[in-house]
């Protein structure tokens, strides 16, 4: 399995968690990004993620390889959803196992920050007022 995946169906967190298992790991930290019902003060109904798959997979893999080099961790995995999501849905999952919790927390945080900053995936939010919009990483709208 690649360490970074795109998924167009719900993420199976239990199965992913088992991939992190290791007899020498004492800590496992996971991050889940969920679809919130509000963003920047606007009521959100649902959202859609679009990805540029070839580059997203390469970038995601690069980020996870780098995390394994930089932190004393055993396994690091990430799955990002694409397509339509509802409020409460799991949009992105990052899991890291390590001998000790310092490295697991630091690497998990690093990976989600890097994924959000660099992987070519775009979020389109659909608002209760009928508007929709592609977002910047800081949550402000992009217009082309």
């Amino acid at each position, binding site marked *: 399995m690649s360490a970074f995946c795109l998924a167009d169906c719900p993420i199976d967190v239990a199965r992913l968690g088992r991939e992190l298992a290791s007899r020498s790991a004492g800590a496992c930290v996971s991050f889940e990004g969920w679809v919130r019902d509000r963003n920047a003060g606007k009521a959100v109904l649902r959202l859609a993620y679009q990805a*540029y798959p070839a580059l997203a997979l390469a970038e995601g893999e690069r980020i996870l390889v780098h995390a394994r080099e930089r932190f004393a961790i055993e396994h690091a995995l990430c799955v*990002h959803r694409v397509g339509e999501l509802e409020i409460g849905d799991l949009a992105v999952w990052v899991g890291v196992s390590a001998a000790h919790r310092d490295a697991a927390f630091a690497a998990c945080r690093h990976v*989600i920050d890097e994924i*959000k900053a660099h992987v*070519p*995936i*775009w979020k389109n939010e659909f608002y209760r007022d009928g508007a929709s919009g*592609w977002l910047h990483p800081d949550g402000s709208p*992009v217009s*082309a």
Partner: protein
Amino acid sequence: MNYRLLYFASLRDRTGCASESLATDAADPRALYAEIARRHGLGLAMERLRVAVNGEFAQWDTPLQDNDEVVFLPPVSGG
């Protein structure tokens, strides 16, 4: 030269297409973006974008080859 362009997010909405093939004299991504921005009326400044060629990040002045796949990437917002 002929290029294949892919569009994502706001650029896909604005151009109205996910991909297009283009014959042009533009020889690098900078010139190519100027041309498609003019043709599609794109308002997103080049400084806000990154560019990828054949599935890898590239520079704005990287010389393009015939049949390259070129993608102008709006600011990402995954996660």
